[in-house]
């Protein structure tokens, strides 16, 4: 064992004392939170029925967030739009809609294009990030029941997901 420099011993002792203190405080905090929870009851439930955020301040009520076809001016065929749960506990988003072999598929979350390849994993990551944030911020309603948009653009159409989303926002505004 290497020789012990004399000035490290107080460091080690103070460190140990601080670790013990932190442990006692963390135990105390948990017991306090448990007592508070027993008094107020468990009120943490996921917020359900929040509107779907299409980006740029446009919100679509959950009740009308169902499969629809959106006509984009540059395309002969309409693009298909599905609403998928941004969580790993719903049905697999990749199984929704029936894209043809050369169709382009995009996932958009709150106006943010996640692409296609790792979109499911990205949606799961967003879900857990939001959940972790809600836990850290001690929010009573974590609002994790969120939705994303799955856009299927026909193969012969060169419209971008932003074009489809713009058309979808126009539709949402006009139906208000």
């Amino acid at each position, binding site marked *: 064992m290497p020789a012990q420099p004399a000035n490290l011993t107080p460091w080690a002792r103070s460190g140990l004392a601080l670790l013990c203190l932190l442990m006692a405080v963390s135990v105390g905090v948990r017991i306090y939170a448990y007592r508070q929870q027993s008094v107020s009851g468990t009120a943490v439930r996921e917020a359900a029925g929040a509107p779907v955020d299409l980006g740029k301040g446009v919100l679509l009520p959950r009740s009308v967030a169902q499969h629809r076809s959106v006509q984009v001016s540059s395309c002969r065929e309409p693009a298909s739009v599905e609403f998928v749960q941004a969580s790993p506990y719903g*049905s697999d988003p990749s199984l929704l809609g029936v894209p043809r072999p050369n169709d382009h598929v995009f996932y958009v979350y709150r106006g943010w294009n996640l692409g296609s390849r790792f979109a499911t994993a990205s949606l799961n990551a967003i879900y857990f990030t939001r959940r972790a944030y809600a836990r850290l911020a001690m929010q009573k309603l974590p609002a994790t029941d969120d939705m994303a948009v799955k856009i299927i653009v026909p193969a012969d159409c060169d419209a971008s997901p932003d074009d489809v989303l713009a058309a979808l926002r126009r539709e949402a505004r006009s139906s208000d």
Partner: protein
Amino acid sequence: MVEVLTRCASASLIGRARALTSFLPVHTASWSLLVFSAGTVLSAVLQRHLLEETQTTQHLVEFNVGEAFGLAAILSLMLSGPHKIPTLAGSDIAVLLLSALAWFVPEQHGVYLAMTLAGSWFLLKSRSHPRLAGIGQIWLALSVYELWGKLLFKIAYQAIEVIEVGMIYRVGRLFYTDLGVEGASLSVRPDWSIVILEGCSSFHNLSLTVLIWLSILKIAEQPASQTAFRALGMSACLVVAINLTRILLMVPSRETFIFWHDGAGSSVVALASVLAAIAPILLGAERRTCPLSPRT
């Protein structure tokens, strides 16, 4: 005579004081590591049992067993050669204290951020000190089991699900000729089906298997040899097979689902998985420690 006794007594006192000063720092180091390990586990256990929603018996058994093995391995690394634990430097103490702030994370898995930070630090910094590096490995294995493995599964499960459900379907067809599959759901009759979520995955407990394997190797003071890896492979296959059997037993009806998912069946599965993780490496370690002598 009196002078001799006094000289002897003072020499003895000085000797003891010297021994104590050389012994205390070592003990302080061991105590710091022990308090950090116990503090992390205690924080996670309190959060789990006091503040989280009620979990299945299977999860409770597995979490507690994982933590128990991790702590036992850390204790063993300290007690089997306390003089070999080097004194902690100021930076080591600072990392332990900084990591310990994660004890306040209000989530049972998030608490293990503490062990990720400290484990990475000790593993990278203490390569020349096998015992400290061993403690770092155990901390990392614990944090992978409790936090990162679970997070990876939750994020990438849709990709893993395809392999998982395909495997269950192929094996299940040997027992249920009318087994049907649709996405992640399995059924043998039209009015009942089960959905395989990430918590039910057969691959889910492989990180617990690795943690138990590593802990037993550290307790038995054995290196990760080819035989040890073979035992790990065997444990992994057994754990996957046990969970696959459990899922297939849930398929026929709601009653069997409740028994194997939430009832006594889930405890049996948890204990069987833990035994499957322990037995191969334990037998391997025993054989290595006590080799059979040929009879003459």
